[in-house]
């Protein structure tokens, strides 16, 4: 390895020197080629080569790295497996990228308390694997669970197909240790519930790495259900499938997962993995789990809803092998789309469940004569859409059209009372959309938390918020008028 003069700025040079002193030369990557491998996360259109990369092996080294960054006022970004889809882990070219994949110890498995304590580099699936034989699992299951790390899950508040019933990362984290953006160490919660004071766990989980870095995570385990049944239902149209989803929810059943794929997505997975899905306008995958007799009753209710909404075909899987086959198509859908289109944008938005049919119909009309196609693969049960906008960058104008359609889809979600992101996060990618959902004052309030944890905005700067709040402002009284201008008005009352 050749020594490379990195130094976008003098500060990074100084930091490199200190990092080598503290962590040793092997933990510090300055070579440009090696740094380049970290230039983006799963959303590859946003790239930036990090100023320097460090690979700490324990929490103390993470804290030391942050302390050095704070001392030199150099920004830092934490990164796990790099599977994020919002450029949330895109590095700063003049900052430090802290890669946490070497912190991968399962510190404690406490089955009596149904808790596991892990380091942030442990993968999501490793937690379930560690406790599977004892009859437990870790519920949040993002599609990338084989590789994505729990640290990244905490940052993004990851969900997954089964969060319809089991909730998100934030509902399963009971303790965190780490270091805030200004280097303050913290240890909140643990195996016991309800840590006293403000809910810092609630604030930290899902903050996309902008409040600091978690170096130890305590999660809750869930008992494996007695029975799992997976149903596949085919429909002539996506509208009918959408109505069936509403009917299932209205019937009082809470399935573990309800996933939907449209005709184009089905076509793609058939080409890619031969999942043997029926030819249809849409398919639903519905998983019901729980005690055997409850599952039997719920299944009857669900099947009745599906039939009443004109399901053209109904299949079921009861063994693990059969289930895996039904899920194979769904889980490979994103990759499969790559086979039928040279380029695509994965969108992530949420609509109220009752608006699914209407929004899907509107999305169908967005493409017009642009040549762009939209494949829908999504978590229908909680209204979390993942439209895949397919285009060919070689055809003039298609990429721009695809980006425009993708933005319009998000606008549709917001117009229908939904969200700009259900699980991928805002990151850098949606920094321009968040103002569609929140006012300046809403965002300003959120950033009060940022100011508490990271007043100098060193931790993952430039993400989530389009306009940073200045933290050092003197206390003031705001005028209650619509301008929200916030001039000091002391003495007027």
């Amino acid at each position, binding site marked *: 390895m050749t020594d490379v003069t990195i130094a976008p700025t003098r500060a990074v040079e100084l930091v490199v020197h200190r990092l080598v002193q503290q962590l040793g030369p092997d933990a510090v990557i300055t070579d440009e080629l090696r740094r380049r491998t970290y230039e983006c996360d799963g959303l590859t259109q946003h790239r930036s080569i990090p100023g320097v990369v460090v690979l700490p092996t324990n929490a103390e080294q993470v804290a030391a790295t942050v302390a050095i960054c704070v001392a030199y006022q150099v920004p830092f970004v934490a990164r796990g497996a790099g599977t994020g889809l919002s450029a949330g882990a895109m590095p700063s070219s003049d900052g430090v990228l802290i890669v946490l994949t070497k912190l991968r110890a399962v510190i404690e498995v406490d089955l009596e308390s149904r808790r596991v304590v892990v380091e942030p580099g442990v993968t999501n699936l490793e937690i379930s694997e560690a406790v599977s034989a004892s009859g437990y699992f870790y519920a949040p299951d993002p599609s990338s669970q084989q590789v994505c790390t729990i640290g990244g899950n905490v940052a993004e508040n990851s969900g997954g197909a089964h969060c319809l019933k089991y909730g998100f990362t934030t509902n399963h984290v009971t303790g965190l240790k780490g270091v805030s953006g200004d280097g303050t160490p913290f240890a909140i919660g643990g195996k016991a519930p*309800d840590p006293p004071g403000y809910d810092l766990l609630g604030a930290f989980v899902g903050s996309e790495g902008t409040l600091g870095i978690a170096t130890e995570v305590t999660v809750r385990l869930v008992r494996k259900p007695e029975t799992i049944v997976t149903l596949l239902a085919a429909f002539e149209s996506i509208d009918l499938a959408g109505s069936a989803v509403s009917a299932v929810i209205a019937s009082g059943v809470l399935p573990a997962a309800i996933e939907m794929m449209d005709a184009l997505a089905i076509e793609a997975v058939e080409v890619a993995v031969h999942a043997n899905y029926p030819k249809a306008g849409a398919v639903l995958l519905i998983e019901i789990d729980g005690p055997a007799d409850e599952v039997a009753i719920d299944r009857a209710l669900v099947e009745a809803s599906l039939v009443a909404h004109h399901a053209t075909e109904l299949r079921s899987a009861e063994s693990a092998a059969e289930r895996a086959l039904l899920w194979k198509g769904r889980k490979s859908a994103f990759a499969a789309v790559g086979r039928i289109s040279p380029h695509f944008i994965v969108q992530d938005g949420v609509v*109220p469940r009752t608006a699914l049919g209407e929004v899907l119909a509107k999305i169908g009309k967005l493409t017009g004569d642009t040549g762009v196609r939209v494949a829908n693969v999504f978590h229908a049960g*909680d209204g979390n859409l993942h439209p895949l906008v397919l285009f060919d960058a070689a055809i003039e104008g298609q990429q721009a059209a695809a980006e425009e359609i993708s933005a319009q889809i998000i606008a549709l979600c917001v117009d229908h009372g*939904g*969200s700009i992101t259900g699980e991928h996060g805002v990151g850098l990618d949606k920094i321009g959309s968040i103002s569609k959902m929140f006012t300046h004052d809403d965002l300003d309030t*959120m950033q009060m938390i940022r100011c508490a944890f990271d007043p100098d905005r060193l931790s993952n700067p430039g993400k989530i918020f389009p306009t940073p709040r200045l933290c050092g402002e003197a206390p003031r009284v705001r005028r209650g008028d619509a301008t929200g201008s916030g001039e000091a008005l002391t003495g007027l009352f």
Partner: protein
Amino acid sequence: MTTPSNGSRLARLPHQSGVVGVEAKRVLAPTSEEELSGILREASAERSGVVVSCNATKLNFGAAPSRLDVRIELDRLTPQLAHSAGDLVVRAGASLGFDDLRAELANAGQRLSIDEVVPGSSVGGVVATALAGPLRYRYGAVRDLILGARFVRADGQSAKAGGSVVKNVAGYDVSKLLCGSHGTLAVLTECIFRLHPIPRRSVTVSAELPAAVAAAGAQAVAASDLDVAAIEYNLEGGTSILSVLVEGSSEGAERRAAGVAELLSFDSSPRRAARLDPEPPSWWGSLPGDTVLKTTFAPGEAATALELIKSVTDDAFVVRGSLGVGTLSIGVPESTSSGELVELLGGLRRSFRALGGTVQLLCGTPEQNSTVDMFGPVPGLDLMARIKAQFDPLGVLGPGRFVGGW
């Protein structure tokens, strides 16, 4: 502060103007968010101390305010309610009665899976105190069911967080931060919750078991695949009872309840047979007294926690809580002096620390709340202080009421 021109903001007859023994100089009852905003703006300008309540059922859940210029009562805010049954979501005004909300949702066969621990609570009060009962074992605490909130900050600025869809990761989760903040960060005006269908059948299995056996029973039920909704314990007048709530379909709930009863039939215990009831016992989900110590512990330490509590209490105390979650509350008898309470609390805090837990004085008499350190050691207090300084830099909201004494 200027004399309010709007009649609704005229000082009301203070039917209960005191907060933990401190009298409010004025009581104001805004009828709209705009009025609330105006009151808070003025309070900030004058650096007043403000305590917010709605139905005033939990004013004793917090320390004495260090200053109390204005009490704001929210019970004249319009109790809005927008139920999207098809989406299993409700948007509820903070002033809405919690039981009114439940009644409305029940009409559509749905519920907010949060027990009303203190009767007469408002929606805002439940969220501000984050009081959750037995159902939290299965459905999570208040923080797990809140999807969004609207609120007015100390500086009078209105803002919102979250949204009205069940899945949403846009921006920071300010709603969770406001859960259990006891009105010291902002004043809630509206909350959005995730709902569940009302189960078709509920059965409670109760067994009289010695404390240690009850803890083992709770553990066995939690480790089973019977998928129960709540695991509660009550020790009152020397009678020690474990009660388990099973929800589901008619046949399914019965069968699983029988399964639970089977699990609770310990050969070694001087048991009476576990009983199956359609209704939970009378103590279910209520606080064990007027002065209550709340303990938390790693759920696997339930037996030790119970043993520790038993070793420092007698039959005059009531012990009640969610063994499956890892929390037990202690109802302290009226005869206990503040000095004795301080000693009891100190001893328990040392013991529970070893179980990874905490002990707080959840509520007490004005004298107790003023004498005792209600919250004990608070990990992360430095970060909390900074959050408070950001949200309420002038220390207007509930000064001295919550952790840190701010």
